[in-house]
């Protein structure tokens, strides 16, 4: 796991994002509005920017529109009004051919996991690699390593329906990060795990962030937002406000040294 996940030649993998160009916008919303079908507008005139390499939380009450914002970012929804750009491309006007290539640079943790029921945990996590054409031997090596790291070494062949809620969520997270995305979007990724695992997963996201991945995490967990000092986008009645992190709080316990290595987490 470690060798493959420790950075080596990150710049070579990300030619579109020259080192130091932190100000390049990975996601940019400009006066975006969205309504579902004939319903009311979920929000309007929303503007914000996620610079490359940034780490943001996205909070807001239930039904405020967090998942909707993420859906716009991962190209599952099109804005009704306004402009959404992803990696500098206007998503409304990008040619259809281009979209799959943009999507492969994303990692998404869906709120309802969206695991494929008739595939094993391993096959589910391998999906982004298969789609990207990664050679099978590499898949066979990387996937079990990552699953072991999230504490599912014993469940490689389990169908999603035989996994507990938190185990499913960890499979979903593994699938989102397996191809080291340029942009990670996670929707309530710790809703079904206990605080210990939540910490561990957040550290995984921070580790990825250090490798250059831009991260946006929608969450209700105020504690998490407070504990990790990252800027927070707050959705409230369709309006977005950016809240800078409070002065760093003492982290609970020492941060694990070998960040992404470590043993199993199952039944801690």
């Amino acid at each position, binding site marked *: 796991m470690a060798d493959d996940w420790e950075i080596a030649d990150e710049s070579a993998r990300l030619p579109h994002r020259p080192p130091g160009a932190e100000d390049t916008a990975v996601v940019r919303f400009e006066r975006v509005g969205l309504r579902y079908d004939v319903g009311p507008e979920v929000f309007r005139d929303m503007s914000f920017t996620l610079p490359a390499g940034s780490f943001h939380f996205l909070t807001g009450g239930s039904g405020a529109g967090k998942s909707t914002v993420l859906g716009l970012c991962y190209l599952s*929804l099109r804005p009704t009004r306004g402009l959404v750009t992803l990696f500098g491309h206007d998503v409304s006007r990008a040619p*259809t051919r281009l979209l*799959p290539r943009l*999507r492969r640079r*994303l990692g*998404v943790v869906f709120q309802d996991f969206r695991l494929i029921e008739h595939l094993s945990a391993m*096959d589910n996590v391998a*999906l982004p690699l*298969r*789609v990207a054409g990664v050679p099978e031997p590499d898949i066979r090596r990387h996937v079990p390593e990552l699953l072991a790291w999230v504490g599912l070494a014993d469940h490689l062949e389990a169908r999603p329906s035989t996994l507990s809620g938190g185990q499913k969520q960890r499979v979903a997270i593994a699938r989102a990060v397996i191809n080291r995305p340029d942009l990670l979007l996670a929707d309530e990724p710790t809703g079904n795990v206990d605080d210990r695992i939540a910490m561990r997963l957040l550290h995984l996201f921070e580790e990825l962030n250090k490798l250059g991945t831009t991260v946006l995490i929608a969450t209700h967990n105020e504690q998490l937002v407070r504990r990790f000092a990252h800027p927070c986008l707050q959705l409230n009645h369709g309006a977005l406000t950016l809240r800078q992190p409070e002065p760093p709080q003492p982290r609970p316990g020492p941060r694990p040294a070998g960040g992404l290595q470590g043993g199993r987490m199952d039944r801690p």
Partner: protein
Amino acid sequence: MRSDIPLSRDRNARLVPVLVGVMVFLAVLAASGALALDNVLDRWRRDVTGTLTAQIQAAPGLGAEARAATDRRVALALEALRGHPAVASARALDDAELTALVEPWIGAGELLDDLPMPRLIDITLRPGAGGDTASDVARALAAAVPGASLDAHRLWLSRLMDLGEALGLLALAVVAVVGVATTLAIIHATRAGLTAHRPVIEVLHLIGAQQDYIARQFARHALTQGLKGGLGGFMLALPVLAGVGWLAAQVEGGLIPRVGLSPWDWLWLVLLPLGAAGLSMLTARVTVLHTLSRMP
């Protein structure tokens, strides 16, 4: 080709092969029925078209004299027939042929020799003879030779032929209807099978798979399932066809020719399961691409 998404592990999706199987089974039965009917008609056509039989009554009385008189009548009739513009050739059946024809009805034996047997003449008409040629020939024959008539039997068979041809058309129409229904059912079953996979399609799409990659996965899956079902249905139809063939062989009369299928017919039949599988594959591809085209 490298390992793909193992769609076939989805155990709920047995519906499509079973339905394709049933549909192919029914289509094979319908098509082989139509083909066999066509074959029967073909032989009747060859037997009947352009041929007639004339019957010459035997001269009264027994013995050599009467026979000679009958022979003269036959010669007269042959002459008259050969002179008719619509007749290509005319040939009198010899004694052996006549006896063979009558034997089943009256029984063999010396009795036959004693009977004043009517004589038969096979007439071949020129190609393109019209529908009323037979009546024309009949009138000419009756005028030339007393006691001579055309065999109504053959004429009737020619009418039966017309009926048979119409029935054959009808059978083809029914087969076409069955084919359309089958096609619709396979398309529908394949599409319904795919609705269960819509979340999978969605996830693959969001993960950044190319449309063609996704469509190919599902098309291949559908092809496999369709082949399984189609060949299964075909295999199930074989014993039924064999049974029907055996029954038909049992009832073969002199008139009903052997009911059977030519190698070409078999080729058509084999095309049915292959076509069904192909249809299933195509439907899957089109449906998936359509589903994808409606996702942003």
